[in-house]
């Protein structure tokens, strides 16, 4: 290891990764910036270190490993399943701490057995963390994007509202705001003059006429009907918006959603609690729960100590590529997240993989682990 500021435990950590049957990969520090901005959004631009190649390509210093590891997997056309491990420096401006720091982690790609892969990755994270911090009580918080989505769908909200709520998952403030608005809609939506006109012409209830009208208007005004949103996209969402404006969540459904989001209990008790919740609220979320149960069973099978694990229904991570399991690990009683991860089944396709590759992984904040280990001594 040529780098002298590596945490002292880096060698042991890599040995642990190897023991967990992973392939160590390295990725270039200088990466194309596009995939990061595309996945995380334009806001990331302020926090990453960008430059340009001689030919004008946007480049950045690696702000994290998941995207580079996945890109490398796609480029080298490696078969799946494949388990990768990484350890290296990442570059990102943070509110606290240095803007260059070490991360390590595992990406577990292509195992079709979702529950087993989820359990394995949580087990990996707990294994390597407890080896670094033998004297500490670790606490795992688990959430599940797909259970949340299933509950939202089963509550019978219009599609537009489902999307808003799903988009807000993991952002407690935004979620509270949306629920409050659903309970007591203040603005019934803003509609322009054009909408009043098409409504007066009776087109709002006739999708085909509305689509034709929008298409003709676009052509007449020099807009392409396929470069951006199509006439049908606009017509459908207009309908959705009309429904959105008219939706008021009845008290019972709101209470169901709040009761769900308030669930916070030991993971071992979560399957029973979720089934009882769904039964009482008469929600059909069997598929999502089946996967949830299977994961809890797989965790037990993998021998992970269920003691430190809690399920919190409202727990999500605010990145729109997570699709199922999300989790974080802390030392009990301290706020610093030492490990964070989850399932991202869509990411590889979004990055250009030809076939669907399910994926789950986590990363470790080595500087925080070092601090926690220091406290331990």
């Amino acid at each position, binding site marked *: 290891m040529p780098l002298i500021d590596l945490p002292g435990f880096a060698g042991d950590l890599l040995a642990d990764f190897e023991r967990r049957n992973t392939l160590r990969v390295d990725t270039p520090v200088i990466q194309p910036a596009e995939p990061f901005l*595309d996945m995380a959004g*334009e806001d990331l*631009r302020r926090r990453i270190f960008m430059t340009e190649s001689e030919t004008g390509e946007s480049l950045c210093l690696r702000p994290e490993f998941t995207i580079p590891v996945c890109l490398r997997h796609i480029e080298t056309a490696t078969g799946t399943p494949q388990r990768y491990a990484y350890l290296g420096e990442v570059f990102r401006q943070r509110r606290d701490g240095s803007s260059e720091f070490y991360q390590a982690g595992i990406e577990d790609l292509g195992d079709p057995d979702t529950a087993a892969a989820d359990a394995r990755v949580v087990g990996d994270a707990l294994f390597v963390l407890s080896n670094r911090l033998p004297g500490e009580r670790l606490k795992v918080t688990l959430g599940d994007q797909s259970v949340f989505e299933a509950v939202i769908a089963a509550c019978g909200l219009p599609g537009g509202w489902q999307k808003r709520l799903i988009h807000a998952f993991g952002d407690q403030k*935004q979620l509270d705001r949306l629920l409050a608005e659903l309970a007591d809609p203040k603005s019934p939506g*803003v509609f322009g003059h*054009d*909408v009043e006109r098409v409504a007066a012409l009776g087109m709002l209830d006739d999708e085909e006429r509305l689509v034709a009208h929008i298409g003709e208007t676009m052509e007449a005004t020099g807009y392409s009907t396929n470069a*951006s*949103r199509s006439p049908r996209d606009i017509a459908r969402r*207009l309908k959705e918006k009309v429904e959105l404006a008219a939706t008021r969540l009845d008290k019972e459904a709101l209470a169901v959603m709040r009761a769900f989001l308030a669930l916070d209990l030991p993971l071992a008790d979560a399957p029973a609690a979720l089934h009882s919740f769904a039964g009482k609220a008469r929600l059909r979320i069997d598929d999502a729960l089946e996967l949830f149960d299977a994961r809890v069973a797989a965790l037990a099978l993998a021998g992970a100590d269920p003691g430190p694990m809690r399920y919190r229904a409202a727990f999500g991570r605010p990145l729109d590529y997570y699709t199922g399991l999300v989790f974080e690990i802390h030392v009990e009683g301290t706020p610093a997240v030492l490990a964070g991860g989850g399932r991202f089944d869509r990411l590889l396709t979004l990055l250009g993989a030809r076939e669907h590759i399910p994926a789950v992984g986590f990363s470790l904040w080595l500087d925080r682990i070092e601090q926690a280990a220091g406290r331990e001594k």
Partner: protein
Amino acid sequence: MTVTIALPSKGRMKDESSAIFERAGMRITAVGNDRSYRGRVEGVEDVEITFLSASEIAREIGSGAVDFGVTGEDLVREGLADADARVEFAARLGFGHADVVVAVPEIWYDVDTMADLGDVAADFRARHGRRLAIATKYWRLTQQFFSGSHGIQLYRIVESLGATEGAPASGSADIIVDITSTGSTLKANHLKILSDGVILRSEACLVRARKAEHGGNPLIDRILAAVRSAL
């Protein structure tokens, strides 16, 4: 200490700023010939005038290279992170009005608010295989408004240095963030401003660099008082 004031070097902005300084009793004359980029104030020692382009003025105030500048608020807020900590908008001068706005194609019947746009942005990629693209030269203002004020993260900025209003029709972007004074250019391009889509109501301002040595300097106070009295 010499106080440096940066003024616009050409066009209406130059004429209007000269007129205000003249009303303030600070007539500005060019040093050397009329087209010189340096000037002085008649009868006031220790004031230097430097004529620069409006966007350079924003940068020079930000770095503290000049003490005062006259330029558009939009350029200062776009050019500087933490603008209010680094400069003081000392006086709004009543000309150069322009709003920085979010505009979408008129035909987007379903989009009239930022909340609508947030909904469209959230599943844009699922439908179109790419993020919602915004053409603008206002990177910073766009990011602050979309992410900071409206929680919208999922979009991409396409840099546009001119004729931004043509981008949606030409297909190089979906929507725009641009300045408008009368709205007629937007209208001609079949774009509409969102009902809560005004990011900034900008106009020409007298802007002061926040420098420690300005404290207790009578010349600074005198310039401020004179310009304010002329409005």
